[in-house]
């Protein structure tokens, strides 16, 4: 399990359920490595500012992480972590490798707005 204060997704079913039962979901799929940890920490910090978004992590080296890895949006990804933003059950944005807080907040502000409904 990843050592974060985020919601941990340990199975494919849990991930599917989360994205289908919540309007706005951000999932970061990675390891406890130097490119991933900063993203988890940014997500933890952003949680209180984005109460309408569910922030979760998923361990990359598990079979069930195929839920994220096999998404068409992640087909070309070659850098950890894989981060996917879901709106009403659909992946609407994704990024590969480390991201800054500015990059993440820009995406959150952009994708979790009316235009993706």
């Amino acid at each position: 399990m990843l050592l974060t204060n985020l919601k941990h997704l340990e199975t494919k079913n849990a991930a599917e359920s989360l994205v289908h039962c919540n309007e706005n979901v951000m999932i970061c799929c990675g390891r406890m490595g130097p490119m991933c940890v900063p993203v988890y920490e940014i997500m933890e910090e952003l949680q209180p500012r984005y109460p309408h978004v569910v922030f979760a992590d998923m361990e990359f080296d598990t079979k069930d992480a195929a839920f994220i890895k096999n998404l068409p949006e992640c087909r070309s990804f070659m850098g950890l972590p894989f981060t996917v933003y879901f709106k009403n059950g659909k992946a609407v944005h994704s990024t590969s490798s480390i991201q800054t807080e500015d990059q993440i907040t820009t995406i959150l502000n952009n994708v979790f707005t009316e235009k993706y409904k």
Partner: protein
Amino acid sequence: MDIETVVIAGSGPAGLTAAIYAARAGLKPLVLEGLTPGGQLTVSETVENYPGFPDSLSGSELMSRFRKQAERFDVRFQRGSIQEISRIENQYNLRIKNNTTRTKSLIIATGAQARRLNVPGEKVFYGRGISGCVTCDGAFFKDKKVIVVGGGNTAMHNALYLTRFAKKITILHRRTRFKADIYEVEKAKKSTEIEWMVPWVITDITGDETLKGITARNIETGEICTLECDGIFVAIGHQPKTEVFSSIVKTNQDGYIIVAPNSTVTTAPGIFACGDVCDPVYRQAAVAVGHGCMAAMDAQEYLTREE
């Protein structure tokens, strides 16, 4: 508002050494971990030149040992970085996210961040073929062709690490001389999977969904060539993370904080700098450790004098 005695910005070798010394001096330091806890060393697969570890270890393991040692002396850790700093008489207000912390002294050990190539295509393919961390992303390049850009120890380590996965590795360097230790260059030269392109620079990165190749220019002859590849690992050095401090301490033209000779004293009273933020020459963990120790002792002396 509570007033801190000493805040240490950065959690790499310099910051954590400063923290250990400051804690043992009873200064109750608060360490701000920054964006990458443990600093740049955490992306190094192998550290072979840090004394005391004859069998080598990973950068992450080394930094977790530093942290464990700091925790033993009750060093406090806080996530985040300083976003704004202002002076209030003999103290400093530090804005960290939405909070403000006041401190009597500050040790800047924010280190440096990896340089980017700054060529067309780099932003597009970062995470889709371009990476700065072989331990994080090396496995994505199984049986692929990759280029390692750089001529330092990190570039040599990266190339050798990638021989576990990639079918062909090219070290591309802009000079014919290498900054890496001869020992490291020789090790890389012994590998049959590693090829060399010197003195070349990348001028363009191309691909579709993923990276497919580069255009490069020979520095001496001006010759241009294109090369197919699936990945690029960038190891071309670092630049100091000092932007937020440049209004309060003097920096040189490259952004390194200027400190008084043989000390860590900056141009602002009560602010000290150590490690890669003030070291444009050596930039080694072993040097940063010494600097960190000096900064804690300089801060202690300053605080005693101010009392």
